[in-house]
């Protein structure tokens, strides 16, 4: 095994083990910390794929933004109730079905793609390897995938407006 492979297996193992810890810990803050570890090891795998921009953004957005807000909310809600609640409630059947479907999907893709594990050749600006990683992502996002990108940002905008309206209604009813 080369150094790269050893590194990959280490990162992958950390990601999977800490993902398991996320769903088995009783204390939500501990779960959040293991989730951070998972996100970090995924960022490490991105680095191995020479996707430096993606790795940095992964840490900034997920670890620095979303997880901070997660912890913020966990601290504000009543922890006593949460920690005594049972981990496995009635939703587990639905969850089992959903994950079984996902497993079958993944298995199908792996079996079908097993013979040709190579990805289809890249077209567009990403072909030009002299450009920098962040520059390539910028060009891809704003040229080839302009419409999906804008749709995603529109969705986020709708979510923001929805959140503001919900909060406003709550404030108005308090008065």
């Amino acid at each position, binding site marked *: 095994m080369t150094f790269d492979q050893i590194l990959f297996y280490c990162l992958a193992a950390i990601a999977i083990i800490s993902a398991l810890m996320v769903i088995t810990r009783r204390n939500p*803050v501990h779960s959040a910390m293991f989730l951070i570890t998972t996100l970090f090891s995924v960022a490490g795998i991105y680095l191995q794929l020479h996707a430096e*921009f993606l790795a*940095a953004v992964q840490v900034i957005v997920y670890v620095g933004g979303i997880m*901070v807000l997660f912890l913020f909310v966990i*601290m504000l809600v009543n922890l006593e109730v949460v920690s005594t609640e049972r981990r496995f409630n009635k939703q587990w059947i639905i969850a089992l079905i959903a994950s079984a479907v996902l497993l079958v999907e993944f298995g199908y893709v792996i079996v079908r793609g097993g013979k040709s594990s190579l990805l289809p050749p890249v077209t567009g600006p990403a072909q030009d390897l002299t450009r920098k990683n962040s520059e390539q992502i910028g060009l891809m996002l704003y040229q080839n995938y302009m419409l999906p990108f804008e749709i995603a940002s529109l969705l986020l905008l709708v979510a923001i407006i929805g959140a503001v309206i919900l909060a406003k209604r709550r404030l108005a009813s308090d008065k």
Partner: protein
Amino acid sequence: MVEYFLIPAVQILIIFLVLLLFVAYATYLERKVVAFMQVRLGPMRVGPYGLLQPIADAVKLMFKEDIVPAGADKWIFMFAPVITMIPAFTVFSVIPFSDSHTTVFGYPVHLYITDVNVGILFVLALSSIGVFGIILGGWSSNSKYPLLGSLRSAAQMVSYEVAMGFAIVSVLIYSRSLSMIDIVNAQKDMGWWFAVIQPIGFFIYLICGVAETNRAPFDLPEAESELVAGFHTEYSGFRFAIYFMAEYANMILISSIAATLFWGGWLSPFPNVKALSFLQVVPGVVWFFLKVFFFMYLYIWLRATLPRFRYDQLMRVGWKYLIPISIGNVILTAVLRLYFRT
């Protein structure tokens, strides 16, 4: 082997030790400057002019009892200060102190550890991790003042990170690169520091930098008059010292980024004016440290001058003024850049 492992390891060790010394004497500088501003003498007893005071403080903190409060989440409580300190020191691996390089035993040695192509994003990513140490430290203490302090800190740092990011983007539009070295070189090619081209961005960055490090007038997370000492109320001994060191390392970091992004890093003042080219006799490293020193002084100056904000004022300034202004600045910069395309 030597080039990729040994030289960086030695560089990391040197920069780490120098940084520790800087952190220790930043506390001395702060105490002295604040004392002079209040017509006092400051530390005078330990060594001449109190110069050995930081070392005495470090020794004292190391020998103090390490108290873990009853009902605290022990592991998180012990680990939280470390989470704050590691990113604060790691980020210095991409700070370019100067572009000059020497040869040691036939190997080229630069005055920076590494230059990554996503340099500034790496800095932002790591500094966004530091906040976890504060949140977890406050939460795991199992005490109300630290919890309130850490909630304030989380809200404050998340809010001001946004405006800071946009201020940095306005610089990136001109530098056309995320690498710290290329950002300084872009200022060299342009002949101007980015602070001259981007005054609004510079101003916003400075305000957000002070808020990000929880310093006065934005030191709400550790407001003494209402929260005892904020998130580190329950910490004592060496773990308190780690929080303290991380805070000062973060101040040096924010000053270094301000110097690199807005004040031309290792460049001399007005690099394009021929009459001032004699300034280039002074090595770039000296310029860099002078600039960092100025920003550190500014921090202390602000602390001695301005009263603390109220919490709602802080949030209003962040969300209703700084973020819209910084977004407007980015759009204006982009439009100007497109219009006067060179």
